[in-house]
């Protein structure tokens, strides 16, 4: 057969291989055999389709992924020696082209590149615009994708494309890539695909798959596109010996690796070990350098970086790889949710091997072993997991998805129509000119708010108006101060409404208790509005609100009018009184001590600092509240607001997407725990 001629599917060799039934293949998909001397034809055909071929090649003492045009650039006769914290190239005794194990870089750098342009923001006078970057990825062919790597691409597909919000840049890059997979015929001591169920044999997700033998490659197609290309290759039907030798080589690899990380019940084994002393011990060795997650083919977290001109007129935003080990990853205005090294390592490991399952239905690990080899101090996740995690329990159902937002991924422009000063450092912006879908959001939802050259901030929506929304903002830092200072007529960018809302429907026919402190009243105000609009549907409504001083109290006049019109009991307290204050002084939970009501049928909505909410929950429990009737709203570092950037993870939850409003029973052991 010559190059470019379709394989004759009725030929005697093909018929025999099907008869032998060693591989249950369709004639079009193979198995076929490509002589080693003809591998160049595969590269040429891929290039003829207008694709750049990315494949393994030797550079800088490792096997890296780069553009190749000829077979000569493949790592012929190269292997490697890998162990925890070490990687060395080694000569093989044979001339195998794929006789090496995973190198430092995974394919994610082509589907989820380290840096991707997001948008250009412009500000002229008081007007702002945001121009999304064009998505026009190169047509690529990946040559030599291993089983674990293919599984990793499948996992990132679930992360970026499987939920209600998707990453269109990823979608385009993924769709533009043709995948030529290679079954592993070698294994490193760092490999554990067998434990994670991802290899060494390719099980799907490829266009073509090769198995290397000395004289050439067994080839099968895994997609229509693959079969089309296969038809243009100078292949002949694989003979029984070739099929057997290929299966044997793969089988040997599986046997060599064994099962170094038994995963049965690992999810539950791990999640009962939040308090293991081992986390602090790992932190003694861990450098917090993020190399494990950078080489990980599934880690998907990112941050937005901006570069602006000195006037703040133009700023370009880029999405860059970021990781739960970096300083600012879980930082908010008041501090850092994961300050200690042990918190960060625990976040990473429990996510990979437990909470990822709750979020995406698979492990976040494929057993490629890179995090072991490329850890500068040689921390081996298999060893750590085996040390941390013994017996098991049961698994939770994944969280429901909130309704889709009006403008979840791109900034829409809103105009500031009024600014109201609430306290010395808190103001309310009244926004108009919004997408109509915005004003149909739910109480408790938030928006991502930005102007060019400033980092986007998650801000609770503090009121829905007929044709706009209100945002009540505390000047916690320069960016919030800037938003407050923009002034009437200025524009800003908003995305949303995002996240879950207060489930007011759960309170119909019941008493309601609202407990809040400081700025926490802002996300509750739309809830109060909703209660007052249909007051007859609820029993007694009681609102408890604490502020630092009388002057720090938000919406003072509204609080008075809510009490005055009989829609609810309002009890106020302050930490420090002044001469104007004649009410109670002390923490908000002390207000309960003055009352006698029963909470066994009531629903509670709570918003404030996490410590205050914990104290409130304790008091509510004493009043007969069960955890399915207490709803809290949480704060975390948020950048994307739609569960794609990873910053706001809290155990198995994304606070932005699964929250910020949660029933306490859904938070389980992560509520109020340090370092989550």
């Amino acid at each position: 057969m010559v190059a470019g001629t379709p394989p004759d599917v009725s030929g005697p060799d093909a018929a025999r291989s099907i008869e032998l039934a060693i591989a249950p293949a369709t004639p079009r998909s193979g198995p076929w055999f490509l002589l080693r001397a003809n591998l160049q034809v595969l590269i040429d055909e891929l290039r003829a389709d207008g694709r750049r071929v990315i494949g393994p090649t030797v550079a800088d003492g490792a096997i890296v992924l780069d553009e190749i045009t000829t077979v000569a650039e493949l790592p012929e006769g190269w292997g490697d020696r890998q162990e925890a914290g070490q990687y060395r190239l080694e000569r093989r005794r044979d001339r195998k082209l794929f006789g090496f194990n995973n190198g430092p870089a995974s394919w994610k750098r082509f589907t989820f590149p380290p840096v991707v342009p997001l948008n250009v923001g412009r500000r002229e006078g008081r007007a702002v615009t945001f121009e999304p970057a064009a998505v026009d990825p190169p047509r690529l062919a990946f040559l030599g994708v291993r089983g674990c790597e293919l599984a990793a691409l499948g996992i990132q597909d679930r992360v970026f494309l499987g939920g209600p919000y998707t990453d269109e840049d990823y979608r385009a890059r993924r769709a533009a890539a043709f995948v030529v997979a290679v079954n592993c015929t070698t294994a490193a001591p760092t490999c554990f695909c067998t434990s994670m169920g991802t290899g060494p044999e390719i099980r799907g997700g490829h266009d073509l798959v090769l198995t290397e033998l000395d004289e050439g490659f067994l080839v099968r197609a895994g997609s229509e596109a693959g079969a089309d290309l296969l038809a243009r290759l100078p292949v002949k039907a694989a003979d029984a010996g070739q099929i057997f030798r290929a299966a044997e080589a793969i089988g040997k690899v599986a046997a060599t690796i064994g099962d170094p990380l038994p995963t049965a019940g690992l999810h539950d084994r791990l999640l009962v070990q939040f308090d293991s002393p081992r986390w602090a011990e790992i932190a003694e060795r861990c450098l917090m350098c993020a190399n494990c997650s950078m080489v990980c083919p599934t880690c998907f977290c990112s941050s937005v970086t901006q570069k602006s001109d000195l006037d703040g007129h133009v700023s370009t935003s880029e999405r860059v790889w970021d990781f739960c080990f970096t300083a600012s990853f879980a930082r908010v205005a008041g501090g850092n949710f994961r300050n200690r090294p042990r918190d960060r390592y625990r976040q990473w490991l429990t996510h990979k091997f437990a909470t990822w399952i709750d979020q995406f239905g698979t492990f976040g690990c494929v057993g490629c072993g890179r995090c072991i080899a490329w850890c500068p101090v040689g921390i081996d996740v298999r060893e750590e997991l085996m040390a941390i995690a013994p017996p098991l329990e049961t698994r939770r159902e994944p969280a429901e998805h909130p309704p889709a937002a009006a403008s979840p991924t791109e900034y829409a422009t809103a105009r500031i129509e009024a600014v109201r000063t609430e306290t010395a450092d808190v103001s309310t912006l009244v926004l108009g000119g919004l997408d109509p879908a915005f004003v149909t959001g739910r109480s408790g939802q938030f928006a991502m708010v930005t102007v060019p050259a400033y980092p986007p901030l998650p801000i609770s929506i503090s009121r829905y108006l007929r044709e706009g929304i209100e945002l009540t903002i505390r000047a916690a830092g320069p960016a919030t101060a800037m938003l407050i200072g923009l002034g009437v007529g200025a524009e800003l960018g908003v995305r949303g409404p995002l996240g879950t809302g207060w489930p007011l429907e759960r309170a119909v026919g019941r008493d309601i208790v609202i407990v809040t402190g400081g700025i926490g009243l802002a996300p509750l105000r739309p809830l109060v509005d909703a209660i007052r609009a249909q007051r007859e549907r609820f029993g007694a409504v009681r609102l408890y609100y604490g502020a630092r001083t009388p002057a720090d109290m938000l919406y003072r006049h509204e609080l008075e009018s809510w009490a005055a019109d009989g829609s609810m009991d309002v009890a106020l307290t302050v930490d420090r009184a002044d001469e104007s204050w004649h009410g109670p002084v002390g923490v908000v939970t002390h207000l309960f001590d003055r009352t006698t009501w029963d909470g066994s049928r009531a629903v509670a909505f709570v918003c404030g600092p996490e410590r205050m909410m914990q104290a409130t929950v304790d008091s509510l429990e004493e009043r007969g509240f069960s955890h399915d009737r207490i709803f809290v709203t949480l704060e975390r570092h948020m950048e994307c607001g739609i569960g794609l950037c990873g910053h706001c993870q809290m155990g198995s939850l994304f606070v932005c997407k699964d929250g910020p409003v949660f029933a306490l029973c859904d938070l389980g052991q992560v509520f109020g725990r340090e370092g989550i």
Partner: protein
Amino acid sequence: MTAPVATGRLSVGIVKFASCDGCQLSLLDLEDELLEVVGKFDIVEFPEASSVRSSGPYDVLLVEGSISTEDQRREIAELRGKAKTLVTIGACASYGGIQALRNWVDHDAVRAAVYAHPEYIESLATATPVREHVKVDAELHGCPINQDQLRELLASVALGRRPQIREEAVCLDCKRRGNVCVLVASGMPCLGPVTQGGCGALCPTYGRGCYGCFGPKELANARSLADSFLDGREAADVGRLFAGFTAYAEPFRSIVTEFGGTRMDPAGPATPTAASEGGNDR
């Protein structure tokens, strides 16, 4: 920092103490963007570019160099009073610089050994970061500093917001660039995992281990990295890896003190000031 009036131009001064001037040259290296900078700021003092001196006051004062003499100690205190925002630029001003290695040795003995008339040499026994003398509003790290970070700092002052400078290990830029890790793939000692990024992983990109120019990153676990280097190396050789431009910054300082590696007597820093800034929770 508060946002200036939109039309007002901010005055920027650049002063230097014990340093090589390389950091202030980064301002000139802005090249294309230099015009934008001078359009926005009045550069009232810039020794590498102009002989004009200013007596202040400064909206922004960029300070290069460590405090190495009695005169410098007086001068920095005076300058602080004239500067609304004081920013140290570079490893010398932020961490003491390479000259801070003298903090580990007997200053008088060295002075006597080097100079025929040591009595003419008016130097302090230590070279110390500006932060040990006056309040510092922001620090740009590096040897030299990164011009993009300088530009971002100026933008943040102009716009009245926090500088958006990433706090992460050198490894992040190294891997984003697609470099092969020199530490793992060739066993070359590299301080990248414990060093604050900002250089774009310059040295590893050219096949060299990181020298730690930007100083320790947040939560730098220098001890663990140093211990891993001990495999096949003498303690003093490991200590010497940390005894570079940012040797005086904790936790590098403790490693140098404990492992040795300063050329003279590794008896410990001459002024063991408040120990750990940014240590680990161990």
